[in-house]
């Protein structure tokens, strides 16, 4: 758990270091805001305090407080990312377990090659292909954004559970899942392979359980741990991929906002979105660490064993 505490800290120092450089470039705005007499370090302190309390300053481009700009977008991003990660891990885990359990020649080979290929394809390329195939050629799904132009949400929940939203969600979700599928698959496969030789599996088989029951109940329960470790890695990695997906599908999320901010030279938004991104990653890692402790009694009851 100490591990986690240390990990929370890193989010801030890097962000802090960058503020100084950007500050100097936009003298007018900041001079007006902070006053000439304030020495640099004092400005730092105030800035950090503001940041931690959620006040990110005003956006240059939008002429609105940054929180307004980013607030909704975080939820949008998390919705897409969270769903895709959860599904990818479940599906990847299941398929990996399948491939590990039965070493049947051709199915395994195809599966592994497929996983390898999916992993190597750049996410945005796959996104463009999927977009072309399903939106352009077949016309099954809308091509951009989170809602149709004529849509207006009645309430917060309606925003995210309407059919319109789901229709828009399908393609980016599909793309994300395909992209993130292969690593969990391979990890699950190798850990199932390791578990397979263990005695308790023989025992379960001897008890007369059906093959798939053995696999799911006994095999997967024990093989799942490396997968959880991988999940925290995936969260960090997925944010990057998320960014690219948001651009391709014009999904109004934080990643896309950050890129737009850079091209508009809108520094407050840029800094704030990076900060928020890092925060979300760290929080998610924390959650996963807690989950890991909950699932693996060896860590929790360390001393007793």
């Amino acid at each position, binding site marked *: 758990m100490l*591990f986690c505490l*240390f*990990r929370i800290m*890193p*989010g801030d*120092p*890097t962000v802090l270091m*960058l503020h100084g*450089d*950007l500050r100097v470039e936009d003298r007018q705005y900041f001079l007006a805001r902070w006053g000439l007499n304030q020495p640099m370090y004092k400005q730092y302190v105030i800035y950090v305090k503001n940041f931690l309390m959620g006040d990110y300053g005003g956006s240059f481009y939008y002429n609105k407080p940054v929180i307004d700009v980013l607030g909704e977008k975080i939820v949008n991003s998390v919705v897409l990312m969270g769903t895709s990660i959860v599904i990818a891990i479940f599906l990847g885990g299941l398929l990996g377990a399948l491939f590990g359990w039965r*070493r049947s020649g051709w199915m395994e080979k195809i599966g592994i090659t497929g996983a*390898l*290929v999916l*992993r*190597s*394809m*750049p996410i*945005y*390329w796959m996104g*463009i*292909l999927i*977009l*072309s195939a399903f939106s*352009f*050629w077949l016309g099954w799904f809308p091509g951009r954004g989170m809602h149709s132009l004529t849509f207006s949400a009645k309430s917060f929940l309606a925003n995210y559970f309407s059919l319109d939203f789901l229709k828009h969600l399908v393609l980016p979700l599909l793309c994300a899942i395909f992209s993130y599928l292969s690593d969990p698959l391979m990890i699950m496969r*190798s850990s199932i*392979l*390791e578990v397979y*030789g263990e005695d308790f599996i023989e025992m379960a088989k001897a008890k007369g359980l059906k093959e798939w029951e053995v696999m799911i109940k006994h095999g997967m329960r024990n093989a799942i741990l490396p997968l959880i470790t991988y999940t925290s890695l995936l969260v*960090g*990695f997925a*944010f*990057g*991929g998320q*960014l*690219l997906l948001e*651009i*391709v599908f014009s999904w109004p999320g934080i*990643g896309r906002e*950050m*890129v737009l901010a*850079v*091209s508009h030279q809108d520094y407050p938004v*840029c*800094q704030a*979105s*990076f900060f928020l*991104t*890092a925060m979300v*990653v*760290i929080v998610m*890692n924390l959650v996963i660490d807690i989950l890991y402790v909950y699932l693996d009694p060896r860590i929790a009851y360390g001393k007793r064993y």
Partner: protein
Amino acid sequence: MLSKSRTHEWIIYWRRIEEVLRIIFKDSLGATGFIFLGVFIVIAIFAPHIAPFDPFEVLYDHHGAIIRFHPPSRDFWFGTTQFGHDVFSQVIHGSRVAIAVGFLSALCIVLIGTNIGLISGYYGGWIDGFLMRTTDVFYGIPFLPFAIVLISLSKPSIGMVVLVISLLMWRTTARVIRSQVLTLRERKFVHAARSSGASDLKIIYLHIGPNILSMTFLYMAFGISWGVLGEASLSFIGLGDPYLVSWGRMLNEVFISGRMMRAWWWTLPPGACISLLVVGCFMIGRAFEEVANPRLKRE
């Protein structure tokens, strides 16, 4: 007498490299991957001779109009772009950037990661603790957002791209090498070396070093793939080097032009090349997986 033993010691590295190459070629996947990589390297080296046109050359037809969005034809094997550039030439020249960035960043990743792993694993104690905390810092940072912030602070260029990729991607290498070193450290030959009076540096680089070489090669292969993907992602966003053609940049141009679905001849090649190169690297990596984890061998 002294020089003979010196050369003898360093020959170990050469033998290990041979062993590594043998491992790669024994596995059919690994050999295929190596061939993929080799093909791209050759293309990259001979790019100006293979490409029929300059990648930034605007092409005119005999009426004097710019040839835009031309589908593949006998003159332009992969068709033309929105700006009248030949896609095939762009793809060929793009391989140069890909290979260069891939190898450079892979080298840096491996150098940084291996050394940190070696030093951290061998010395242990507070050095280990300090170095591992540092790597944890880099662990928490998502790659693309940080890369965007870094590059936006300075001019986008290929140097920056390599720098950013190297800075962020060495983490896994360091971790893995460190755990390998930890197991190797307690082995008899290290004890023997230490008791015969070898200095710490010697032990690290002459005795432990060659034994982790296969891991190093593995991460070199992965490093190339990360470098290529990272560079392509950054270029796709528009933060790559503006003076060079790269596959990511081609995808960016397609996407911006809005014709990505119709101009399939422009969309497919760069993405396919990226995928092939990365698949090649992963296949090489797979060859090592069988060695590292013998239980995966097919019985």
